[in-house]
């Protein structure tokens, strides 16, 4: 059931982007050599624009040594036999092909610095990071297993909210993950979340904002309602910085904004406060 996996090898195998040797920064227009971009953790070397990261690239950038994936055998299905412009099954299939993922989250156990942790990484490239039943199931299993092992849990959030194609069963994952997170935290375990671009809707309004410490990546878009929904409701354009990580920091909703290139170091520092063993700073 568990899959041993070497981050360094997997990072090279990430199918997306491999075709493009050169990547243009959407913010400053700089043309970046892909290998340089990967080396800078997908942060523009000129303007610090943070590209959206794939789950396995993210894991490779954070963990030391092996990552042991759990619940990868739990695969999505189509409970409502949904179809809109395309069938849900077609969408699942093409997202899987394009992202190299089977769902919008990858969960497992690893070591960061010298700390064993549970790690859940969401990926916007699979159904916009939306939370379906399997997303909820994998995250729930992660928290249950982390509670058993008494290790901290770190979630990288990236989500457009609950997945509409699975109807209320998707919405109910907010309740299911909440219950698992609550049990984990009640036992005195440490939960840290990193909000990445974008984190909205049902994921923001459940486990993402239940963490002990909330870190956000620089300029990430974070909110409950989508920007367009708000603009349509109030019939005016929102300022550019509205719902950015920096905006949330100012409003008191999150603990800190961190540049991705300094994130790992920051996570290790934070774990040192939460995990008594085997610290010797």
């Amino acid at each position, binding site marked *: 059931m568990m899959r041993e996996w070497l981050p360094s090898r997997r990072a090279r195998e990430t199918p997306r982007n491999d075709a493009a040797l050169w990547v243009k920064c959407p913010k400053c227009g700089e043309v970046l050599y892909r290998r340089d971009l990967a080396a800078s953790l997908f942060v523009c070397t000129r303007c610090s624009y943070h590209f959206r990261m794939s789950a396995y690239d993210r894991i490779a950038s954070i963990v030391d040594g092996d990552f042991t994936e759990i619940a990868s055998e739990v*695969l999505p299905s189509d409970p*409502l036999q949904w179809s809109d412009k395309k069938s849900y099954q077609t969408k699942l299939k093409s997202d899987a092909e394009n992202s190299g993922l089977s769902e919008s989250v990858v969960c497992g156990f690893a070591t960061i610095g010298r700390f064993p942790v549970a790690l859940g990484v969401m990926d916007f490239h699979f159904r916009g990071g939306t939370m379906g039943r399997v997303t909820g199931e994998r995250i729930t299993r992660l928290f249950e297993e982390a509670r058993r092992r008494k290790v901290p849990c770190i979630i990288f959030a990236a989500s457009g909210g609950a997945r509409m194609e*699975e109807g209320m069963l998707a919405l109910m994952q907010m309740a299911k993950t909440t219950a698992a997170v*609550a049990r984990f935290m009640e036992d005195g375990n440490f939960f840290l979340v990193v909000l990445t671009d974008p984190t909205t809707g049902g994921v923001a309004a459940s486990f993402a904002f239940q963490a002990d410490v909330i870190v956000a990546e620089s300029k990430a878009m974070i909110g409950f309602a989508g920007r367009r929904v708000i603009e349509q409701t109030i019939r005016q354009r929102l300022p550019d910085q*509205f719902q950015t990580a920096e905006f949330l920091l100012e*409003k008191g909703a999150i603990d800190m904004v961190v540049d991705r290139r300094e994130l790992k170091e920051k996570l290790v520092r934070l774990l040192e406060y939460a995990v008594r063993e085997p610290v010797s700073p």
Partner: protein
Amino acid sequence: MSNNLIVEREKGLVELERRIAELREASAAQPLDMSAEIAGLEERYQAILRELFGSLSPWEKVHMARHPARPTSLDYISRFDRFDELHGDRHYRDDPSIVGGFAFLRSRAVMVIGQQRGRDTRENLRRNFGMPAPEGYRKTSRLARLASRLQLPVVTFVDTKGADPGISSEEHAQSEAIAVCLQTFATARVPIVAAIIGEGGSGGALALAIADHVLMLEHSTYSVASPEGCAAILWSDASKAEEAAARLKLTADDLRRFGVVDEIIVEPLGGAHRNAQDVVTRTLDAVDRSVARLSSLSPEELLDERYEKYRRLGEWQAQSLQPAGTAQ
């Protein structure tokens, strides 16, 4: 001109109702026997009701759930034996789109919390059309925590299009307010009974609906997204809302099959507003029965059962949910 399908459909009935009432009045004032004529009209009236409302599609239920005359949370709360409203989130302000406080239900002290829309434009503006701001969810969390401490069962009434999507709500961390509400309900050491009485709009509804027993009125809806929002996003075509309503499986029957809802309260022909008195009585009876049953459990048993209930929801095996998917 109403944009509510059901209200439009009721327009002809109003005329018929007036004629029956007039005949009754006339018959009372005169020696003439008009009972046969009255009975004939009433029979026709009932036949039309059956034809118009005998079987409602998911889209028609969406409109029924939004009917302006549909009983609101306060219509239920006012039928409790006593109610002492508590206000405010203790941080910023009181949100009138959520009403809550101490109450007695059939001689049992409880905490009652409901989402409250307005009956007219003025009240809707004051209550933000029943769309709670973070302050409303923080008031809810506060009252649920208080109930947990005082060992009072929590009764909630769910009726919202969704959480407020505004600038101030984002500035005051709507996500956090809802996330904490969910956490509070998931861990409250007292029985929780929720009743979906109108619209159950997404996370903003779920925030009051993690419960040991979930009741739902026959023509209420409970959905991951509004059919209009879903159509706009997935079809890029708002006119597909009716199809989205059918696909979303947002009716009480569908949700009972999925295990999202535990019990359905049957509505009179034509909807709850046609006999609100009766619907409220039967709903409160059902709430009372559930609270009584749940009150015999220890806090540990309650929490374990609640955990298992939500743990099972949306099991991932395809075959476990196939029957529900094939309905419709």
